[in-house]
């Protein structure tokens, strides 16, 4: 069974660090780029030119398309990326967005010293949705110990000014967090307090780069000074109630419970990232520069080599192998699953290369052991046991779903479960908001008593849960996002015909009411507005004036009269003897594998109507055992942008139950895509209730329909979707002469599905319920 890191395997790479400028305006003496073993920066171009940026963007887009990567992240790095200047920066950002956005969700990030951050720069970063991380080592004394200009002056004042800019309401959403490099000569509490004072959304504490050849500074008589320093911070942070996430501590907490670290510094998660230098050369992770001159070199270039070719390099592949890639000493260590050998670069020793424990081995072990032993440490939240046998589900449900016989009762049960989960998430979000910002919650609670049907209908909208998942992650850091709870409440009030007055957040002149539509005002105002909802009319008072909307009877049935703005209602299309939502407005719909399309015009909408009507006819004829479930279960279709090459596109978002994303195609192809994606939605809802597999970052399985080895959940989802596609092609083959294309497609899907089921059953990753599920699935392949 191929696993991650198998020789010759092209591992999907989702993170790219672009060295867009190779120089820095600071001269920090602890910088691994300029002050450590590797000096390759001296021979590089100062900036990444437009031709190189275009080539990088092409390579990333090509790789993302090949591997169907849902998201890729590009980190602008240096040197100091802000040295590019706004105009050149705009060209870089535009080129990346233009080429990669149509293929995959592009998360653009920047790591900066902040010195040159300005309002014009922030406007530009906001325009291209770039998240900014700032490097700050603590209070003035701590920061200016290393982070100095070439003339010796400290940078603390300039960095704080940059952070203040990022703290303003306009730019707050750009602020990604603070990176702090530890120096044990600094007072840990003073550093912690200084960092806490600037209210970063996230904080990470980094050990200064060191190797066995160039060991860490250790004050005399102290065996584990870095562990001691970090433990002091941890103690204060815990006593403070953990006011912001600290990535190193959160990673160790997660790995203590058997979870993922999500960090390259600790744990056994694979590291799927590569670096591009200013001259277009591919490099390994840049922290390797601390080891020896040329340590990060690959000898490959964006002009001559694909990402797949980079990914196949043994030195990249070894980063995917988890425990197997560690030294014998590490593999025998009792804390290895938490430590993971530490940062790869820190393992270097002349003679044995990277086949060693970390130069911080003693500190990491002490840190992990001490955290585990601390009685006052809040334990990792332990959730109630999750069903692994399928016995908690209604009788026969698991078997029916597994066999591709999801019926109306099964889909109703799943839909009710999903609604309950959304309700739980709303409670969590509301509880995490300041009391002064809970007006929307209070309205929703009241409406839930007085008009429960209206609330229920609103919360069943698939993208309310997508928002809630985002909001719970951003609690305390993005009040504009959590404030959208007011929009949910307002939508419920409209449905209920209730009278409420509520503060709602506007962004760029737009107010979206989930499941209903979007109100746009003439000026691009951002911030709070006051929405008064009464039966048949609304009034929105905002910074640029007042907008009035009035309508007779049902909102859906009429064209509202609007003064001082523009209302775009959600539209519905006929499907399966009823209508479903054609969701082309909700900002949270853009969570699919491909970018959501902009609102189509009337003629394109008519075409969509024809296609969906024809697709339903196919589903009804070709999936008689599941058509009722699709008819009852499917609530929304999100149009996706077309593939430039004409390839079919469809997608399911894990948190958007009962909604599918589809790019426009003909009716028979759309039927296959809807059936395929609805299967994913059903299985996703089932996985919320029952564990079918045990997640393991190291286990990857090969399947017929993808070039790259896939994680277990991906294979399970794909196999389950292909069960239905196999059935559709079997039905189509039955209507044509033997040997025709439908017969070939049927045989192909049947073989892929059977082989993937076998791979799952022999993976060792399935729970008893999962084993039963896959066996039922495999049995259903034989009519």
């Amino acid at each position, binding site marked *: 069974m191929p696993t991650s890191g198998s020789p010759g395997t092209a591992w999907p790479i989702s993170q790219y660090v672009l060295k867009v400028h190779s120089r820095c305006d600071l001269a920090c003496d602890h910088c691994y780029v300029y002050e450590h073993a590797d000096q390759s920066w001296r021979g590089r171009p100062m900036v990444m030119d437009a031709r190189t940026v275009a080539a990088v963007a092409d390579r990333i887009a090509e790789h993302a398309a090949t591997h169907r990567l849902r998201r890729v992240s590009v980190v602008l790095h240096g040197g100091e990326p802000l040295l590019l200047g706004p105009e050149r920066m705009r060209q870089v950002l535009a080129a990346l967005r233009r080429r990669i956005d149509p293929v995959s969700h592009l998360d653009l990030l920047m*790591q900066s010293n902040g010195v040159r951050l300005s309002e014009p720069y922030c406007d530009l970063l906001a325009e291209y949705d770039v998240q900014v991380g700032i490097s700050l080592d603590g209070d003035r004394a701590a920061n200016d110990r290393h982070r100095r200009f070439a003339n010796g002056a400290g940078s603390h004042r300039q960095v704080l000014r940059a952070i203040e800019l990022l703290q303003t309401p306009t730019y707050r959403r750009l602020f990604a967090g603070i990176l702090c490099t530890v120096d044990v000569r600094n007072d840990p509490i003073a550093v912690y307090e200084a960092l806490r004072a600037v209210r970063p959304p996230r904080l990470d504490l980094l050990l200064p780069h060191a190797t066995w050849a160039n060991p860490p500074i250790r004050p005399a008589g102290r065996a584990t000074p870095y562990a001691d320093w970090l433990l002091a911070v941890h103690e204060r942070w815990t006593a403070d109630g953990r006011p912001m996430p600290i990535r190193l501590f959160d990673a160790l907490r997660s790995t203590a419970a058997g979870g993922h670290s999500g960090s390259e510094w600790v744990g056994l*998660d694979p590291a799927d990232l590569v670096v591009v230098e200013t001259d277009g050369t591919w490099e390994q992770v840049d922290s390797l520069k601390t080891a020896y001159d040329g340590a990060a070199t690959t000898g490959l270039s964006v002009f001559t080599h694909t990402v797949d070719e980079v990914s196949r390099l043994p030195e990249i592949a070894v980063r995917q192998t988890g425990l197997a890639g560690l030294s014998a000493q590490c593999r025998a260590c009792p804390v290895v699953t938490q430590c993971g050998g530490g940062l790869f670069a820190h393992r270097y020793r002349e003679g044995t290369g990277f086949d060693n424990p970390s130069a911080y081995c003693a500190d990491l072990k002490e840190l992990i052991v001490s955290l585990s032993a601390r009685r006052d440490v809040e334990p990792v939240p332990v959730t109630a046991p999750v069903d692994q046998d399928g016995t908690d589900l209604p009788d026969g449900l698991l078997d029916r779903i597994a066999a591709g016989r999801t019926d109306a009762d099964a889909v109703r049960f799943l839909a009710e479960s999903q609604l309950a989960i959304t309700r*739980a998430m709303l409670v969590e979000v509301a509880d995490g908001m300041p009391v002064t910002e809970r007006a929307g919650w209070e309205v929703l609670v009241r409406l839930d008593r007085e008009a429960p049907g209206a609330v229920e209908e609103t919360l069943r909208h698939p993208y309310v849960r997508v928002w809630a998942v985002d909001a719970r992650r951003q609690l305390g850091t993005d009040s504009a996002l959590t404030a959208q709870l007011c929009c949910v409440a307002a939508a419920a009030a409209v449905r209920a015909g209730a009278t409420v007055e509520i503060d709602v957040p506007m962004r760029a002149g737009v107010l979206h009411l989930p499941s209903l539509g979007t109100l746009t005002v003439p000026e691009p105002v951002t911030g709070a507005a006051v929405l008064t909802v009464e039966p048949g009319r609304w009034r929105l008072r905002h910074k640029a004036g007042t907008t009035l909307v009035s309508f007779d009877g049902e909102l859906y049935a009429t064209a509202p009269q609007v003064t001082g703005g523009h209302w775009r209602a959600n539209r519905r299309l006929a499907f399966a003897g009823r209508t479903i939502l054609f969701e082309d407005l909700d900002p949270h719909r853009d969570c699919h594998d491909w970018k959501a399309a902009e609102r189509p015009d009337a003629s394109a909408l008519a075409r969509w109507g024809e296609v969906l009507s024809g697709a339903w006819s196919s589903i009804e004829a070709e999936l008689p055992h599941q058509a009722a479930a699709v008819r009852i279960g499917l609530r929304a279709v999100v149009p996706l942008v077309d593939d430039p090459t004409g390839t079919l596109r469809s997608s399911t978002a894990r948190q958007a139950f009962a909604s599918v994303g589809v790019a426009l195609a003909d009716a028979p192809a759309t039927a296959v895509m809807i059936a395929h994606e609805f299967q994913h939605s059903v299985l996703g809802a089932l996985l919320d209730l029952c564990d079918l597999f045990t997640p*393991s970052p190291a286990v990857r399985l090969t399947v017929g329909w993808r070039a790259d080895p896939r994680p277990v959940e991906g294979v399970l989802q794909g196999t389950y979707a292909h069960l239905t596609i196999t059935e559709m092609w079997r039905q189509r083959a039955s209507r044509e002469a033997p040997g025709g294309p439908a017969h070939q497609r049927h045989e192909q899907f049947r073989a892929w599905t059977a082989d993937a089921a076998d791979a799952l059953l022999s993976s060792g990753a399935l729970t008893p319920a999962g084993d039963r599920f896959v066996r039922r699935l495999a049995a259903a392949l034989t009519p």
Partner: protein
Amino acid sequence: MNIVENEQVSMAERLSELRRRPLGEIPVARALDVTRTVMRHRDDAEGGVEVARFGSVA
């Protein structure tokens, strides 16, 4: 209506309680328990690691 306090109740039963109980009467602890359970494979989703820069969680 009483929320079932027994932690051994099934997920389906816990959700059924959340579905029936008015929003304003759902105990936060019960809601958190359910969201943590549902997001158990999501909040620390498998895949790549996050590099020492700030950005999206893998």
